[in-house]
């Protein structure tokens, strides 16, 4: 066989390629794998029994509960918000549509600590509604409502961001078809729109959830860090660390990391189903492959 000599594609020289791959692998190991491995190692450095005892500590348990509560409230609200925003932006024409698109993205670009401070100014004692809230005996800051609000601000864009490109690609045809067949708005949403966005929606919810559970900056400002009362898991980890309770901190961190891993697995599983990827409407959805039904 004649040896074909052709010039390598641009950037395809072996030296260049191997160097690139080596650099990337080294950085991944250094930046991502090593710290995670340390968490796992340190958490169990004094044995499983000690790990269990640390987790069973009432303050840690309370922090886990706090984080779970926050997620249970913030995620559903932000999901509803995200669906409504994506629906409004992609299915209706109204003035300010483009502006809304930009505003939704603000929490992505603003540092969470800024959000926290902003909430202080709005709901704090010296803040906008501070006196009114105090006289009504409503506690927002340094309590669960404040934590939920701050978490919601930070994670507001997640669901909308997943849905908007997909719904934009799908267009309005399906909804128009359903309506022309006599379906009401609600029916159209539940029987036509929702089934076609469900994987992307779930993907957005998972991302939103993992961010709510891990949020530190905004929450640390509004929660007041009261141990056993307003500490979420990320805040509790910091507290344990400052107490020179390294094993405790690492044990709590390992829980958060485990949550992240579970999220990651769910995310990968969903990506296999086509969520998070924009597809042509005629091919989207849950239709099985042709090969499954053709005899």
């Amino acid at each position, binding site marked *: 066989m004649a040896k074909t000599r052709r010039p390598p594609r641009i950037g395809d020289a072996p030296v260049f390629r191997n160097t690139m791959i080596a650099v990337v692998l080294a950085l991944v190991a250094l930046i991502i794998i090593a710290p995670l491995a340390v968490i796992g190692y340190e958490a169990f450095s004094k044995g499983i029994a000690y790990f269990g005892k640390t987790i069973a500590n009432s303050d840690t348990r309370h922090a886990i509960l706090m984080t779970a509560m926050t997620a249970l409230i913030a995620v559903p609200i932000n999901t509803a918000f995200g669906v409504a925003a994506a629906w409004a932006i992609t299915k209706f024409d109204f003035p300010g549509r483009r502006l809304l698109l930009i505003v939704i993205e603000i929490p992505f670009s603003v540092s969470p600590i800024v959000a926290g401070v902003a909430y202080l100014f709005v709901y704090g004692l010296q803040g906008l509604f501070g006196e009114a809230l105090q006289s009504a005996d409503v506690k927002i800051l340094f309590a669960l409502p404040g934590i939920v609000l701050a978490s919601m601000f930070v994670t507001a864009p997640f669901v909308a961001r997943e849905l908007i490109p997909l719904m934009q690609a799908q267009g309005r*045809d*399906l909804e*128009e*078809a*359903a*309506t*022309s*067949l*006599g*379906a*009401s708005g609600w*029916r159209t949403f539940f*029987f*036509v729109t929702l*089934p*076609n966005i469900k994987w992307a929606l779930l993907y957005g919810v998972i991302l939103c959830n993992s961010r709510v559970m891990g949020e530190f900056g905004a929450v640390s400002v509004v929660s007041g860090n009261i141990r056993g009362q307003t500490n979420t898991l990320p805040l509790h980890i910091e507290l344990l660390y400052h107490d020179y309770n390294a094993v405790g901190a690492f044990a709590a961190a390992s829980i958060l990391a485990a949550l992240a891993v579970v999220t990651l697995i769910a995310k990968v599983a969903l990506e296999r189903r086509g969520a998070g990827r924009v597809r042509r*409407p*005629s*091919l*989207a*959805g*849950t*239709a*099985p492959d*042709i090969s499954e*039904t*053709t005899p």
Partner: protein
Amino acid sequence: MKIRLDTVVKTFDTFRAVHGVSLDIESGELVALLGPSGSGKTTILRMVAGLEFPDGGAIYFGDENATDIEVRHRGVGFVFQHYALFPHMTVGENIAFGMKVSKTRRSAAEISSRVEHLLRLVQLEGLQDRFPAQISGGQRQRVALARALAVDPKVLLLDEPFGALDANVRRDLRRWLRKIHDELGITTLFVTHDQAEALDLADRVVILDKGKIVQTGTPEEVCRAPASAFVMNFLGDANRLKVTVSGEKAQIQNVTFDAPDIADGPAELFFRPADVTWREDGHGIQATIARVIDRPDSRRVLALTVDGQPIEFDAAPEFPFRADAHGFVEIRRPRVYPA
């Protein structure tokens, strides 16, 4: 159901899509809205459906003013250009959707027997458990039609019904749609940019340009007597020569044509490529042959008049081609329009 459009106007932002269109569609008629892209034909169709609302004018269904009735309650069957089948539902579920959401309650048995009936009508028996992604484009088109018919619409509206299909499938579906229309007798309005489709299928063709109706008539009427140069051009290949009119006679070289009701001055002479006879000698418009394009049933000859205007005409497959051959073009059925 008779449909009447009364000076309907629609403007998008700054762009005027439809300028005062009035149109009567008789009950049971099959009408084509034909025009180039941007002529407002789809906007008119969507306004009849209730998917858009006119800024001015009114739309009547029979004697009822339907202008402000929303699409849900208007009782129209709409077939979308890309079918808009629900991808997560089977063919059967797609067809049943309209009956399931309808205010008139139907039993499950009633719905399934009607789905079967409709599948037979559109010749898709046995496919009800497939998903839209598993059937061909032509089949999707027929499912979309069955779905639209399932709700017993007063009017059937189709947006570029065959636009996304292969040429062969298109022709078959065209004839088939005509057959279905004749069986059901439902008032049907469809939009197309393909003149062959409109002429093949419709009882009456409405030709639109820039948001206005330029001609309405049976396929025979619009073909034999195009109302303007635009219609002449749009309906098929046409040659255009610059001529001079004086005293209702158009002249080019030494040849004159009747030009009734055309004002004196420059005008345009139109004729179809099939309406030309090439003569080696004799009289006619002098021209030189430049090129020949072969087609299955004829040869298309490209020629230039002595004063450099291009002419195309169809000749028999045996037509001998010699580049730069001189001759004379004899024109049948010429039409003169003001320039």
